[in-house]
């Protein structure tokens, strides 16, 4: 598999911070296998591929570690995501689960519930999307450095627009803290001189529902006739936008980019509707999240800054301060891959 690994400035900074953390502590902690850890993997909602992939990774890690406890993969329906997540985290606390692995879709609305969970002894490890304030969260397993996603999104928009012109963002829900952080990071990047002719005209939300995202994409091209790129930092939004442009035969004029799954994007990548997009491995993210959660639940690590732990086949990782969320902690996975027609087919299989 040929992959193009990007290393934006922010990513480099993130890696540097990770390395410094490594030197601070003598040795990585390895949690003893075979402990009883009851865990819940709680995605934003059920029914889309990346979360299923994360579950596959988590199950793989659980099998490797030989946990004698349970690993439940449960989630709300998309239209009931925020309230459903709050309900399920509450239930997990009642069940005295040892750890809940949460991809947060409820913004800070879930913070009181997460704090109650922690108080009752249920650890809350976030992955994919953190709790914005960090309240109630033990640690966040970050797929990639959020700042570097901003750089990559800006660069892809720059490339596809030919260095100048209008582009718009089609995001998930307004409370999705991962997407919000990436868009903010992208806006910061856009202030750079390189991007001065690139204009972000709008940010709209399709709530990770295919039809809504499809309609929002059509709305964008109606509203901005000179639009050159739709940047969708969500696997649901990017497919919907690419399909919308293909259905309207507008792929020559408006390019779609963002974060997408190769398997879902391969046809749009090959036919030129979405020539460039990025993503990381959700299987690895689920795997690392379970490894970290297991180490925390068994008490091998406490979730403090500077602690280093081993995560099976992925090597060792260090808990560090989250540069995007003062006072909150993260484990940085990274890096990610930019897909083009040259490498998308290999990754899609």
């Amino acid at each position, binding site marked *: 598999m040929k992959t193009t690994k990007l290393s934006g400035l922010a990513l480099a900074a993130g890696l540097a911070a990770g390395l410094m953390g490594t030197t601070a502590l003598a040795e990585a902690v390895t949690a003893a296998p075979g402990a009883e850890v009851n865990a819940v993997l709680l995605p934003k909602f059920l029914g889309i591929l990346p979360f299923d992939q994360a579950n596959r990774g988590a199950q793989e890690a659980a099998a490797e570690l030989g946990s004698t406890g349970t690993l439940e993969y449960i989630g709300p329906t998309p239209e009931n995501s925020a309230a459903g997540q*709050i*309900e399920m985290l509450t239930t997990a606390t009642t069940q005295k689960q040892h750890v809940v692995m949460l991809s947060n879709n409820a913004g800070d609305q879930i913070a*009181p519930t997460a704090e109650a969970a922690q108080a009752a002894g249920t650890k809350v490890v976030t992955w994919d999307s953190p709790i914005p304030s960090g309240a109630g969260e033990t640690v966040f397993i970050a797929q990639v450095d959020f700042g570097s996603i901003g750089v990559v999104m800006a660069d892809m928009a720059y490339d596809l627009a030919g260095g100048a012109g209008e582009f718009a963002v089609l995001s998930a829900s*307004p409370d999705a803290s991962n997407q919000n952080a990436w868009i903010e990071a992208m806006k910061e990047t856009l202030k750079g001189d390189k991007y001065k002719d690139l204009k972000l005209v709008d940010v709209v939300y399709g709530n990770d529902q295919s039809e809504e995202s499809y309609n929002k994409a059509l709305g964008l091209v109606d509203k901005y006739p000179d639009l050159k790129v739709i940047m969708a930092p969500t696997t649901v939004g990017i497919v919907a936008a690419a399909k919308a442009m293909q259905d309207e035969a507008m792929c020559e004029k408006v390019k779609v980019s963002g974060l997408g799954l190769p398997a879902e994007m391969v046809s749009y990548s090959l036919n030129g509707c979405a020539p460039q997009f990025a993503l990381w491995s959700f299987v690895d993210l689920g795997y690392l999240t379970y490894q970290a959660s297991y180490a925390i639940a068994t008490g091998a690590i406490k979730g403090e800054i500077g602690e280093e732990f081993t995560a099976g086949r992925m090597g060792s990782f260090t808990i560090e301060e989250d540069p995007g969320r003062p006072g909150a902690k993260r484990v940085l996975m990274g890096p990610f891959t930019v897909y083009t027609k040259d490498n998308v087919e290999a990754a899609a299989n």
Partner: protein
Amino acid sequence: MRALKSWEGGLALVFVLTLAWNAAFAPEFLTVQNQINLFQLSIEKIIVALVMTLIIINAEIDLSVASVMGLSAAVFGYLVNNGWGGGTAIALCLGVGLAAGLVNATLSARFGIPSLVVTLAMLIAFRGLARVLVKDNSLGGFPGWVTDLGQKGLVGPVPLSLVLFVLLLAVLWVLLHRTGFGRQVVVIGTNAEVARFSGLNVGRVKAVLFVMSSTVAALAGVLYAARLGSVRGDSALGFELDIITMVLMGGVSIFGGKGSMAGVLLSILIILNLRNGMALMNITGHIQTGVIGVLLIASVLLPNIVSDLRVRRARS
């Protein structure tokens, strides 16, 4: 035996079965904290369902309740983030609810436009206002005492919202089943024309109910905001369906004139316990929705089938 044949009797049986099922298969079910969580996770809906019971018995409907909840929550978030005190903001939110109720009452009771149409229009209008106020943001940063009241126990582990629910239940129970006003609600619901010719002030009764409904919905909106600690433009979106569902499953006739607080209370208890039990057994969201759906279809079909059978038996 006769009690069992009534709708409430059937509900009581289903409720007991649900309790037994949960207690048998979910060891955490009978803990105090779980019992409180079970109410608190849906508390805003069940508060509004109580007033909805009277509205539907009165042969009207209020589809705008969830939008009023959302609007009230949005107004609260907006005011608090623009330097208003929490107490003043809550008072203004209740004022918004009162005003919304007056709009519904005027259009439907005074001008005689069917409440289905009026409140459907207001469902859209109030939601639009809420979205304009909050835009695509999430407004938080409420005063500590507001979120404490929304999230923590007031009487021991029992939160304020649950206390309010019990009080409102008692008040409306007495109002519906023990007062002249309650009898008027039922008589008008059975046949508004006859009630009007008998000299009842039909418009006034309906107006009181609509104002009550929106004001309580506004209160529920504030409780929702306080519980979650922040509001969005789509807060409480679609709650009206859950609320109306609870009422209809409680044996309240959608054509008016029939229904009891006991039935609705049992229906609420069944739905909440069923959801809670399924969650504790790690049954995922899609299946939970499906099970509740099947229950509802059964609860709508069953009375029709039973009465159909009775008619046939009487004929033969």
